């Protein structure tokens, strides 16, 4: 069953190769896309319906029906911010629907700290070639991002 992954943020959809972290850029974490977010106070929403398997201020994993995990990483090296500037709007274990608010943050603040606010959205444990219909360019909140076949 294919899973439609939608944009957890608005901004510009770019290839993972443009992420300034080789582990994401070489798809070691998994295939997917990145979103270069608008530099304004933003609400990050669930990219799929499912259960919040992991929720850190700077990263979240939602497992869709069928056990597929989608990772959203809010900026690069943002683990070192220790949650500063992130406000959680949901909790680990919550059932969510696509589009439901999860975290509030401001990419401009992350950038001001010298970190990249680019957000990889990754299909965890995905087979090679299983991700298709990748978006490119300007993308609105909740718009189709990619399909996980």
């Amino acid at each position, binding site marked *: 069953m294919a899973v439609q992954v939608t944009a957890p943020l608005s901004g510009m959809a770019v290839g993972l190769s443009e992420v300034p*972290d*080789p*582990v*994401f850029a*070489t*798809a*070691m*974490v*998994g295939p997917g896309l990145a979103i270069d977010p608008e530099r304004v106070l933003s609400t990050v929403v669930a990219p799929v319906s499912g259960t919040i*398997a*992991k929720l*850190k201020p700077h*990263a979240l*994993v939602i*497992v869709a029906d069928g*056990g597929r*995990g989608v*990772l959203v*990483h809010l900026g690069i090296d943002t*683990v*070192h911010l220790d949650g500063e500037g992130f406000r959680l709007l949901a909790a680990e274990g919550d059932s969510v629907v696509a589009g439901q608010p999860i975290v509030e943050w401001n990419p401009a603040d992350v950038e001001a700290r010298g970190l990249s606010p680019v957000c990889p959205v990754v299909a*965890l*444990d995905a087979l090679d070639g299983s991700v298709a219909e990748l978006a490119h360019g300007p993308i609105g909140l909740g718009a189709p991002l990619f399909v996980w076949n």
Partner: protein
Amino acid sequence: MTERRVTVASPVGLHARPAAMFVRAAAATGTTVTIAKPGKDPVDARSLLAVMSLDVRHGDEVTLTAEGADAALDELAALLASNLDAEPAPNA
């Protein structure tokens, strides 16, 4: 069944980047490897979703288990005992 106990050295634990490097190495062994935290069921070390969900923090002791594969387990244990976040990412 072979086991290794190792204390995780990455300051940030097994979050996205160190977890991805560990899972990639576990998958490369070609054998079934599990990772467990005390009091929790072992999970498939080749699944990034499983490893990230395990929520391994800096200083946690984890148990790696595999059928045979001593050398592979030694390598994986050494990876976890190193600061994966400080090392340059491999050229994949």
